[in-house]
């Protein structure tokens, strides 16, 4: 079910596009192994959703990739530069929005962004342009002259986001970017992430599942420091394929009548008007049921495939692993 190997073994031809390559990274805090032999990669034009329950190692991984934390073992390569051997070149290709926005509250938005532009070695002449571009894409144009301390949490979050993209780095790491935003801002931010995903590689760490479905191309679920799922959004649909139907009739037939249909493995009745129909993958009996229902006048008024939601998949993967 969890086919990681195809994703992890990238052929040399694909390597040209690989922006972040994480190899066998481990990290311990004292006796606690926060991240164990983690390996994955991100290509250009890809938004990677990084999911996991609290304490699974998401933030630790983000910190390792962003150079805030050194890995005990393993290597991180960003845009072809090893993070330990050539830290400056690697970090120049990187924009990082940490979990807590790194803001100097005594500066105005413009001053702060200018400082960030300078830190990222943007030439003096281009700083203003870079700053305005970052402000525009994060919706900060109206607050440029205001003190960061006086901004609301949502605006502060956006300033931090602007900081991460000001030098338009190839790799953007976002640790829970939509925290504290209102629903409209969340939609805008997701739109921005999608936009960024077109020519950058984006890693998005979050525990908000719809966010992943809305803005990511690929999903990784981490639990207890190890990857338990690494799958494209399309591939994810396979995991979430429906294998059962809920059918409701005014005048329900005997379950045995439905069990005879091809592909159906079992039918359970809830004693009321609802029937639960389980079927084989690949043979969906919906059409057949509808046909029979009109033929025998069962009074069909509801038929619904029961999909596995990302949430259920998430719970299944993270709880099954933590038991072993």
């Amino acid at each position, binding site marked *: 079910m969890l086919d990681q190997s195809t994703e992890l073994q990238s052929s040399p031809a694909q390597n040209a596009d690989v922006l972040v390559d994480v190899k066998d990274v481990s990290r311990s*805090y*004292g006796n606690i192994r926060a991240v164990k032999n983690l390996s994955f990669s991100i290509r250009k034009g890809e938004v990677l959703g990084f999911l996991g329950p609290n304490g699974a190692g998401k933030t630790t991984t983000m*910190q390792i990739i*962003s*150079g*805030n*934390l*050194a890995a005990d073992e393993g290597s991180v390569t960003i845009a072809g530069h090893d993070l330990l051997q050539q*830290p*400056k*070149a690697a*970090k*120049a290709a*990187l*924009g*990082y929005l*940490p979990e*807590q*926005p*790194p*803001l*100097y*509250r*005594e*500066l105005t938005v413009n*001053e702060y962004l200018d*400082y*960030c532009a*300078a*830190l*990222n*070695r943007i030439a003096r002449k281009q700083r203003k342009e870079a700053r305005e571009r970052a402000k525009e894409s994060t919706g900060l144009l109206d607050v440029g002259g205001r003190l960061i301390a006086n901004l609301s949490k949502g605006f502060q979050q956006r300033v931090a986001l602007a*900081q991460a993209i000001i030098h338009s780095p190839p790799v953007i790491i976002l640790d829970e970017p939509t925290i504290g935003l209102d629903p409209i801002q969340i939609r805008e931010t997701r739109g921005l992430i999608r936009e960024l995903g077109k020519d950058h590689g984006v890693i998005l760490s979050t525990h908000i599942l719809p966010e992943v479905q809305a803005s990511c191309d690929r999903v990784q679920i981490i639990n207890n420091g190890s990857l338990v799922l690494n799958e494209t959004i399309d591939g994810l649909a396979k995991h979430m394929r429906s294998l059962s139907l809920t059918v409701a009739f005014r005048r329900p037939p005997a379950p045995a009548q439905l069990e005879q249909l091809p592909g159906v493995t079992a039918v359970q009745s809830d004693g009321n008007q609802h029937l639960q129909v389980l079927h084989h993958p690949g043979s969906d009996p919906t059409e057949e049921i509808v046909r029979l229902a009109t033929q025998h006048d069962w009074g069909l008024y509801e038929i619904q495939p029961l999909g596995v939601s990302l949430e259920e998949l998430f719970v299944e993967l993270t709880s099954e692993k933590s038991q072993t």
Partner: protein
Amino acid sequence: MIFTIAWRELKGLFLSPLAWAILAVVQVILAFLFLSHIEGYLLLQPQLAALRHAPGVTELVVGRLFASAAIVLLLVTPLLTMRLISEERRSRTLSLLFSAPLSMTEIILGKYLGIMVFLTVLLFLIALMPLSLLMVTSLDGGMVASGLVGLALLLAAFVAVGLFISTLTQYPGVAAISTFGVLLLFWLLDWSGKEDNLLAYLSLLNHYEPFLRGVFDSANAVYYLLFVVAFLVLSVRRLDADRLGG
């Protein structure tokens, strides 16, 4: 890149009332001490006139002013350096520097330079006091200059200690009190009794006094430079270890 960080540090200082308060307080206290030294000199003047090799006004007033300035600044420097790294660690802004294309050395030197520029301003204001005497008398220019160089080197050492201690903690208060303690200890080391033991040699005070007498001994200057370099290297190492530790 170092200048970018230094500039922000300096700007941050002047955006908070702390820098202004420090400038004002130091100036008021030193002005008062300066006046009392002048008064003392005026009282002594008749007796000095009778001596053959009497110490001049530069040594009696300016030298004593710089000696007092050292004590006052020993109290003040920890307040300036306490926030350097600890505040950034506390408000999680350190990750901004860590994920930017900067080396740890650049971060440390930038921070160090920022505070040193501020202290140069302070030093300039202090220097104005003895220079005002030029209106009424002549001064031994070499002795004033050597005193200023000595004070600058001493401050450079103070800041290096403060910066290092600020990298150790995330509580500015802890950094301030520890820096103060360490500086005072280095100051008092020569009280350990015998004149020529190692502890006395390490004392910050022993290397400062010759400057006030107008003696520029390169060994003393080198002592301060080594002191600064040692603590800056320790700071860089400590910041680097931040990524290794948990």
